[in-house]
């Protein structure tokens, strides 16, 4: 059965870019969902569940990232990931919700 593509665009606000720790939290969040999620810039895309791909985007401050998901829980996944990126300046201690 075909699922529609859910999509959103976020911008990295943190001065330090999408560095190791937020990238890790992002990947952990993505891995909670069953849907396929990709993340990318205009130049390249990668698997949002792979820390290698996410960090490999080398997203510096101001980079616009596009998140797309397809699958049963795609809508929720995109919303949660968008909220994470929006909330983050990445400098405060992130919430601990059981990883």
């Amino acid at each position, binding site marked *: 059965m075909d699922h529609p593509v859910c999509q959103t665009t976020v911008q990295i606000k943190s001065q*330090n*870019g999408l*560095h*190791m*720790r937020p*990238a*890790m939290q992002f*990947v*952990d969040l993505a891995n909670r969902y069953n849907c396929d999620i990709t993340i990318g810039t205009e130049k390249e895309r*990668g*698997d949002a*569940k*792979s*820390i*290698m*791909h996410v*960090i*490999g985007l*080398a*997203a*510096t*401050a101001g980079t616009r990232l596009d998140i797309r998901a397809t699958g049963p829980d795609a809508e929720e996944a995109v919303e949660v990931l968008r909220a994470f990126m929006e909330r983050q300046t990445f400098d405060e201690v992130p919430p601990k919700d059981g990883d």
Partner: protein
Amino acid sequence: MEIKKGIAVSPGVSIGRCLILDSEDYRIPRRQIASSQRMLEVQRARNAFADAVRELSGLEQAQEQLGGGRIKDIFAVHLRFLRDRSLRRQITDLIHEESVTAEYAVASVLRRFAARFTEVKDSYISERAADVYDIERRLLRHLLGDKREDLGRLREEVIVVARELSPTQTAGFNKAFVKGIASDAGGRTSHAAIVARSLGIPAVVALEDLTEIASGGDSVIIDGNRGLVIVNPDAETVAQYEAYSREFVALEQKLDTIREKPAETRDGVTITLLGNIEFPDEAEGVIEKGGEGIGLYRTEFLYLNRPTEPSEEEHYRAYAQTLHLCQDRPVVIRTVDLGADKYTQSKRFAPEPNPFLGLRSIRFCLQNLAMFKAQLRAILRASVLGRVKIMFPLITNIQELMQAKMILHDVMEDLDEEGIAYDRRIDVGIMVETPSAALTASTLARDSDFFSIGTNDLTQYTLAVDRGNEQVSTLYSPADPAVLRLVRTVIQDAYKAQIDLSVCGEMASEPEYVMVLLGLGVRTLSLSAPLIPEVKQMIRCVTLEDCHVLTRKVLGMNSERQISNYLRNAARKVLPEAF
């Protein structure tokens, strides 16, 4: 195939398999395996990942108990890498597709990945490469067990590729098997450069990210003549280089045979060939190549790569060693020519906007008297050990020369008071390397025992060209009529004042300029050791009469291009194999 350009610091050409060293001496072994072995390598890779995950989880938990938030975060990130399916898939795919070892696959996938970060301008992101290297090392440690590379036990010829070579690493080399050196970092005075020159093997440094491009076992060509390193060259390139290398070796051997013969023109005029050195042990190479002494001993190395100024004792030891190697041959020690570089710039509050026209060389010395005096003391003390001459660099006017000489006399008086012996009649000369010095050479000659023409700076300052700036470097040429006319003036003024004259810039080491320099009246050339035989060969093929005819023609020409072409053609006729 990938071609990287760096700085050539030791001449020659080598083709071989590379051995990559990182700071922990891990070596990534040769990569190719039989296709039947692939499953085994995939399993080894999986085991290494599993072992590394176990190890890291343990470390992470230990940190948790210690409450070390930041370090725990780092371990947590590394753990996610090790569990990353994409990463594992890339590694196993590489093993399957290219039949390579697990070590090679791990290193090349992770190094390729790290290379992406180093391209990013943002330092916070670019520093992530360090994390990737850390993960790579952890995996390699599990793959290789404790098989640290023991460089002393090399059993096959290798080309050593390193980020930066440490003295400890090179001390352990089995030198018989190291055929070339290439490093990411470094300059002419870096450790890799010194070792390579002393071993007589080609080396290229400042390659920036070579260790990320090359993986252990890759085939590499080191071209220490042109400053190139070629990774995984294609068959055509290898063939070209093999031919080039054979020619180079053949030429070297042929030239070695003239080592004992004098540097004499066909009509019997003797030319003195001296060596340019930076390090005491290079003096050996100069003598070996037939040099009759040291015409330019650059002393900057004593100051570089260290946090503090060298002591008088350190200066003295370096000079004593050089003089010991040279015995009774002359050694011209140039006082320190620092400037426009990290050393002097770091001592300033504000960087100079135009360092080549700024506080450098003798100007810097005259403003840092304690430092200058320590060097002069050491030179004078060493002067009783051999035939020492002192040379001041970058003199632009007579006042500077007088001031430098006055300081030298102060130091002499101090030594007299302390009863320390030195050569009272020590020759004191100058580098003529600014247009102002060249134009006032007749005045400067009255207070100099000798001139040495530094053609590199003289060309640069005369033509207002930074030879390091690619956009204008084609304008840089010692064959420019303006430069040649200045050189002629200096030579004539030295003759009139009856003082010694030599040429020590790169112009002196290029066979194509030999004839014009001889024709202008130069009888002493100072050049880097490996180039001495070729220049000697050139000298032995010409007559002074030919040189005079050529020089008269050239001085009548108005364009650099015309002169260059003419000189090159003339040299090619005399010594075809050198071009």
